[in-house]
């Protein structure tokens, strides 16, 4: 089994090259495909000249990159059938909104197959999807559906924020014998960071602490984590910023340890607010660290409605580093925020 020679290591090393988030994904996929002939990529427009926003350009094994018709549901079943037959497919989608077309396969088939047969079979299937937003794409092309998919037992949901994480976690996802939903925010693609050239994996289910502080625990993933980090830096806030990296399984231990220290919790989640990932984090923390919380926990999410198109409305719809910073500051000052803006 070619995958066994990896070490698990989740501390970003120093001294490696700086490459983009996009290049880190590409490198992980290329290395996985070179290492293991069972790995192949499939997806609508996966094989075209755009190379999935560059994340699959010039791969060493183009013969294992398969384009498909607009048939996301059946293609997910095809990927599953191939995974059950010993392959390790990476099924890629240009926008996560299209995953809803494949929901029957994802939720009824992919996620349940192992449970239904008491884990006699492996389902080494990665479903990659890019989260996009902005430029008036509107309600059907701007969602971030990690909260929806995290509800479904049997799916791991990974959404890395840095080039280092995205490479290590992509390799872990491909190596994993259970289905992994891998979500990449388009706005992270050009970010650069330190990424070793050699293959490495990062554990699925282990958070990263992006900033240490003592007054407020902030939980945020993907683009939200980067925005929160920016807000902390801009406003020099004493924040313990945790990026769970994999939202399911969730590294609750790291979050709880932080809340026990800070006594305050804010979850910034770029997703719908009702029964989403932020709800889960708040609920799980309150169940386990009620006594530690000095003030009510808070969530910052999208408004509970579909995305508007006009730039003016888009810019108001999505949280910004400024809004995150403002909320963090208020929480640290202990002032109470009207929670009613988060839930209808």
């Amino acid at each position: 089994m070619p995958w066994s020679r990896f070490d698990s290591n989740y501390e970003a090393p120093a001294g490696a090259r700086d490459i983009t988030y996009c290049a880190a994904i590409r490198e992980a996929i290329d290395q996985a495909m070179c290492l293991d002939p069972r790995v192949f990529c499939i997806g609508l427009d996966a094989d075209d000249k755009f190379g999935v926003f560059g994340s699959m350009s010039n791969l060493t094994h183009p013969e294992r990159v398969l384009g498909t018709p607009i048939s996301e549901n059946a293609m997910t079943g095809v990927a599953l059938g191939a995974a059950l037959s010993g392959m390790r497919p990476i099924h890629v989608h240009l926008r996560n909104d299209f995953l809803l077309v494949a929901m029957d396969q994802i939720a009824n088939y992919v996620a349940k197959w192992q449970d239904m047969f008491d884990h006699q079979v492996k389902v080494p299937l990665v479903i990659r999807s890019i989260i996009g937003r902005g430029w008036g794409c509107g309600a059907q092309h701007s969602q971030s559906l990690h909260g929806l998919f995290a509800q479904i037992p049997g799916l791991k949901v990974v959404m890395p924020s840095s080039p280092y994480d995205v490479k290590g976690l992509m390799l872990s996802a491909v190596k994993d014998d259970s289905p992994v939903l891998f979500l990449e925010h388009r706005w992270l693609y050009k970010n650069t960071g330190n990424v070793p050239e050699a293959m490495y994996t990062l554990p699925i289910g282990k958070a990263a602490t992006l900033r240490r502080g003592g007054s407020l625990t902030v939980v945020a993933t993907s683009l939200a984590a980067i925005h929160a980090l920016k807000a902390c830096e801009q406003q020099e806030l004493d924040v313990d910023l945790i990026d769970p990296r994999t939202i399911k399984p969730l590294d609750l231990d790291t979050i709880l340890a932080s809340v026990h220290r800070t006594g305050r919790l804010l979850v910034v989640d770029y997703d719908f607010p009702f029964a989403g990932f932020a709800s889960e984090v708040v609920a799980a923390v309150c169940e386990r660290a009620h006594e530690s919380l000095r003030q009510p926990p808070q969530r910052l999410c999208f408004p509970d409605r579909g995305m508007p198109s006009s730039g003016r409305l888009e810019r108001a719809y999505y949280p910004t580093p400024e809004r995150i910073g403002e909320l963090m500051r208020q929480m640290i000052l202990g002032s109470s925020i009207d929670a009613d803006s988060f839930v209808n």
Partner: protein
Amino acid sequence: MDRKATLKREDGLWMLRRMRLIRQTSERIARLYPTNVMETPVHLCIGQEAVSVGLCRHLRDADKMFLGHRTHGPALAKGLPLPKLMAELYGRTTGCSHAFGGSMHLIDLEHGLPGSSAIIGGSIALGCGAALAAQLGKNDYVGVSYFGDAATNAGVFYESMNFAALRKLPVLFLCEDNGYSNVMPKSAHSAHDIVSVARQFMTTLQADGTDVLSVYEHTGEAVAQLRRGEGPVFLHCATKRWMKHQGHEACDIVDNGIDRERDCPIRKLEAFLLKSRLITPAELAQIEQAVEAEIDAAIQFAESSPFPDPSLLEVS
């Protein structure tokens, strides 16, 4: 068919005007687009105008048409006022969707456009739903599902055809086949002949989608069948996409088989109208100018319209 004998001048003029409206509007959008005044994706219809215009000459306001992502052409053809389109692209409250929809989500209830969708395939079913409403309510409007060649890859297309055929719904399946799904040619996305498959479910017709008179003729036949209550029709219109899938640039696919002289639906109609003496060269120029003026006014309207207030997003 002796087209000259049958085509009425008013129909010819109407179709010419609408095609010019779509063409010139699209060209103007393409010119303005790089200036970022329109913050929304645009899927232009240059070269494909004949399809929506030939179709819509036979449709009434009450007929309900559902669109996908490539909306501008069919929406204008069906009757969406240009200022409302422009204001929507400009993200203003006076847009047809009040700045909430953008290019891919246009609506105009008055003109039988109950909305459009950017998720490929699904809106095919909605046209069937409109037809079902007509049938159940004993109304005489028809439903139109307007979609591209690649939308037929989605399972919902077959499910919709089967249901429409089972219930003999008055719905037109209008396939605007430009031969591509983004840069993927039809040969890569369909193993089969789309029309032959559709024929297993319903009456099929085929028109030349670069020739508005061909589309007009076949749509006439199709819509007549629908209005007679004889069940659904699939109308295939082979056409050509002159532009890139999205944005303001010309299509750069090598060997795309496009000859802008030969394939232009507007030139074709103009030539025919001139030859048939249904129009004069002076009138042609006049139409072109009138359309330009209309576009100027629409842009003026859009630019001077207010942006939406962010408080509109508040959820009660």
